[in-house]
């Protein structure tokens, strides 16, 4: 098979040279300039988890205020900031970034690549995301946090009704996080399409990776809608346009269409990776390939499509024409089918597998309970007449927390326990993990289940107080107890993580005997991810690969060489040299942030800050050496792979 015209390099990878090539500079410089997807993802994960804790604190304060009627703990001004900041934070600064962070870490490993595509853009996205976090939380701490609800309906968010900077802060925070989210989405899509290990054709892509691809495509299509909406809002407020100004020919409902065209897909953007995590963990602990791989993947993809056709079900109470409402009712019910199919496939997988129950799996069992309830109440909300009763009440608050915490937070905790050994090289404590789960699960249901009843019995959402004779007191009191349990669960998780970092048992490369590629390298992985880039012969390569499975040779160890493969069947295409650590993403992010922050005070900020932005982007794209062309010819022109003289070490048979 070999072409005699091309001399193939020998199978000899030098770990030391690879380490030298891929390692970051030591110390602070390395921390700032890194383009290693694992370091960036860790940063994202830690920040997002901090946002989760902060958002949880706000939620606890709200429950405290509502634990008894006519409570004077907080006034309406602060309470409105509390729920707006909580919702905004959890949707934009926790849920989407944390799932993307897992993707940044795991997708390159799962597809067997040495780094994520466009690593500088991913580094840039983190700094912008951090800017978004500060953009929300600093104003909140200065008592100028947004106070018009996380979906910021117009005309309430217009200058006339929100004359302070609060709505501007909200709108530009959206811009920060959406730019960051889009950058990551593009990087993940390209990583999956072009950087897969040879042999990983489309029908062998791990389900978690499929979930991230669907999420990323949804982000690419949904987020421009909210950026458009928030930009129009900012223009209304700063530049006297009248997009949403009813008195001057604007339209109050236009905002809702634009916002929910993003806002509904956002729900799927958040929980599709969650269900993909469930598929991964269910597969590993069932000790078999997932049942109905094609059905599960098609469910993810079709959810991604249908998710764009239901935004109007947030607007049933606005009084739309009945025919339109019926269409969106039907679409909202259709979306239950792919999710149902996934449930059935998981149960079939467990049914026919040899289930081994462990800490990550326990969280997945919690997911089944919680997310199922959230899905069923979702079908109820799709029913227009019933929705008109429970819309904008605590019933919806209950539903959305069952969907989002059930669909994402439970799988995320499961994922932390599952991938923690890979991230840190240490195991977590199983007993503590189960205790943490029990507290969180009991607390969650105690907090959120009574909200269904509160909504049916007339309690609207977003009220800072309620009359003593409303009959809502007991349930609101009970919910505070639930909050205490959830808090305890999270504290136990932190204790577990902390003690594992300090003195956890060392983890092997593949502690769960899982089948995907991230387990084929050391725990934690080296900077270059894989000593020998692998090829795959099945959906679970560590289970399916024969002992003599070929590896990839011909990548240089002295430069950051990465293999690019074809989209459909992942045949080798060419090599590309990946960027070195660089300061420019940070500098570009700083200029971008100055532009975004400045523009809420004066439109001229856009002009002034364009200068440093231009300079930093020029630095970013300046060619590093004369020979840099971006791509080089792959030495194996006819795209066959040489057989290694011996199978790579450290691989499970």
């Amino acid at each position, binding site marked *: 098979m070999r072409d005699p015209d091309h001399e193939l390099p020998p199978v000899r990878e030098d770990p030391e040279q690879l380490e030298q090539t891929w390692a970051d500079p030591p110390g602070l410089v390395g921390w700032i300039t890194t383009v290693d997807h694992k370091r960036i993802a860790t940063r994202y994960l830690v920040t997002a988890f901090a946002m989760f804790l902060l958002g949880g604190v706000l939620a606890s304060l709200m429950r405290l205020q509502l634990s008894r009627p006519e409570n004077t703990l907080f*006034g*309406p001004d602060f309470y409105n900031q509390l729920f707006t900041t909580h919702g905004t934070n959890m949707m934009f600064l926790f849920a989407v970034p944390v799932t993307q962070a897992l993707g940044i870490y795991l997708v390159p490993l799962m597809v067997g690549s040495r780094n994520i595509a466009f690593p500088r853009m991913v580094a840039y996205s983190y700094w912008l995301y951090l800017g978004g976090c500060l953009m929300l939380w600093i104003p909140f701490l200065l008592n100028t946090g947004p*106070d*018009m609800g996380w979906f910021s*309906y117009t*005309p*309430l968010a217009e200058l006339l*009704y929100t004359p302070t900077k609060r709505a501007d802060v909200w709108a530009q925070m959206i811009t920060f996080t959406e730019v960051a989210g889009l950058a990551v989405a593009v990087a993940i899509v390209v990583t999956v399409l072009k950087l897969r290990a040879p042999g990983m054709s489309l029908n062998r892509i791990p389900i978690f990776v499929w979930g991230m691809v669907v999420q990323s495509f949804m982000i690419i299509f949904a987020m421009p809608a909210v950026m458009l909406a928030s930009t129009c809002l900012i223009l209304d407020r700063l530049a006297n346009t009248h997009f949403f100004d*009813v008195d001057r020919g604007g*339209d109050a*409902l236009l905002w809702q269409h634009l916002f929910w065209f993003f806002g509904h897909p956002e729900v799927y953007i958040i929980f599709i990776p969650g269900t993909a995590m469930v598929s991964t963990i269910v597969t590993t602990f069932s000790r078999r390939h997932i049942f*109905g791989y094609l*059905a599960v993947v098609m469910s993810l993809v079709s959810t991604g499509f249908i998710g764009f056709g239901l935004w109007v079900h947030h607007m049933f*109470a*606005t*009084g739309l024409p009945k025919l339109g409402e*019926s269409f969106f*009712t039907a679409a909202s*019910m*259709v979306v*239950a*089918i792919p999710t*149902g*199919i996934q449930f*059935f*496939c998981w*149960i*079939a997988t*467990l*049914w*026919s*597998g040899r289930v081994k129950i462990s800490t990550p799996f326990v969280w997945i069992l919690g997911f*089944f309970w919680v997310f*199922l*309830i959230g899905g069923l109440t979702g*079908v*109820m909300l*799709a*029913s*227009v*007449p*019933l*929705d*008109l*009763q*429970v*819309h*904008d*009440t605590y019933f919806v608050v209950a539903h959305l927390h069952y969907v989002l915490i059930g669909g994402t937070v439970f799988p995320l905790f499961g994922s932390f326990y599952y991938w923690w050994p890979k991230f840190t090289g240490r195991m977590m404590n199983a007993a503590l993990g189960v205790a943490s789960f029990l507290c969180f699960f009991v607390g969650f249901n105690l907090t959120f289940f009574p909200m269904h009843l509160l909504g*049916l*019995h*007339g309690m*609207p*959402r*977003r*009220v800072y107080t309620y*009359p003593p*004779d*409303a*009959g809502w007191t007991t349930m609101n009191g009970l919910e505070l107890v639930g909050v205490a349990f959830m808090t305890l669960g999270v504290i136990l998780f932190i204790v577990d993580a902390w003690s594992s970092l300090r003195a956890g048992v060392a983890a092997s490369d593949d502690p769960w005997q899982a089948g995907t590629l991230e387990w084929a390298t050391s725990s934690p992985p080296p900077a270059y991810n894989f000593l020998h880039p692998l090829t795959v012969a099945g959906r679970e390569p560590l289970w399916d690969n024969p002992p003599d499975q070929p590896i990839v040779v011909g990548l240089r160890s002295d430069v950051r060489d990465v293999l690019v493969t074809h989209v459909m069947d992942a045949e080798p295409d060419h090599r590309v040299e990946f960027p070195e650590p660089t300061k420019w993403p940070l500098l570009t992010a700083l200029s971008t942030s100055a532009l975004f922050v400045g523009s809420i005070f004066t439109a001229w900020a856009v002009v002034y800050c364009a200068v440093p932005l231009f300079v930093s982007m020029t630095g970013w794209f300046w060619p590093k050496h004369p020979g840099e062309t971006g791509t080089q010819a792959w030495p194996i022109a006819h795209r066959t792979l040489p057989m290694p003289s011996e199978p790579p070490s450290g691989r499970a048979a």
Partner: protein
Amino acid sequence: MTVAAAFLQSALDPAGPQAAHIARLWWLLFWISAGVFVLVLAFLAAALRHRGAQTSERRLTFGVSLATTVTVVVLFIILGVTMWTERVNATLGASSAVTIELTGHQFWWEVQYDAANPSDRVTTANEMHIPVGRPVVLKVTSRDVIHSFWAPNLQGKRDLIPGYTTAIWLQADRPQTFRAQCAEFCGRQHAHMAMEVVAEPEAQYEQWLAARKAPAREPTDAGAMRGREVFLTRQCVLCHRIRGTLAAGLVGPDLTHVASRGTLAAGTLPNTTGHLAGWVVNPQALKPGSQMPDNEMTSEELQSLLAYLETLK
């Protein structure tokens, strides 16, 4: 429904045909969902207990296909019932309907009864009287931000959107004072934007409506006359209207018959002299963020003003 009776307002204690249809729909969906929940978790538990035993992929495929088919069938049933409920709730279609125009403001409700003769139109605020057993069509809109009218015992909610006027039907089948509340977040005092919907027998309703058509009574005693002077010479007059006087403000609620209402400040306080005094002087303490400013006045002025307002039955 004894449980529901313990609540000030509840969708599960229907008092009209539409709320009753929706409550029935709720119970149907509740039992279907409960069944699905138990069934799925039972299969999950069985799957976990089944560990290791071999099942052919064919049987698994059959099981998953069957479950998917059942899901689709159940969804179609729900869709059908939904469509039916939507259809019967859309309109009550009687020619004898009462037409009421409801306008939302931060943070109160303006209520206008439609009449063939414009001079017979009745304007009131934060309280709506409706005849039992007769359909009512509400034409709703807003003067500022989006609000939502929700009387859970009677009907689902409808948003009040500036620039749009939409119609929603409701009907009360028993005499009772129902509570309605704003359900779309509308600003700082969203929590205190409620109203009373008083359903009463036809005769009583007609009597009430006729009384509302009359302008405010002329005060007879000196205290009340002094109170009217206070009202007309201070800032009150800039926002409020009292028909029969020069006060013609349209920013705040119409006060022509304020003393006959059950509550003050859109369901925030019971309408008693003490609460009224507190509300007139210090509304920002009772409802911080409301559009009504605090009013400084001497005790004599306040007492006369209260005496006058108490006469506005």
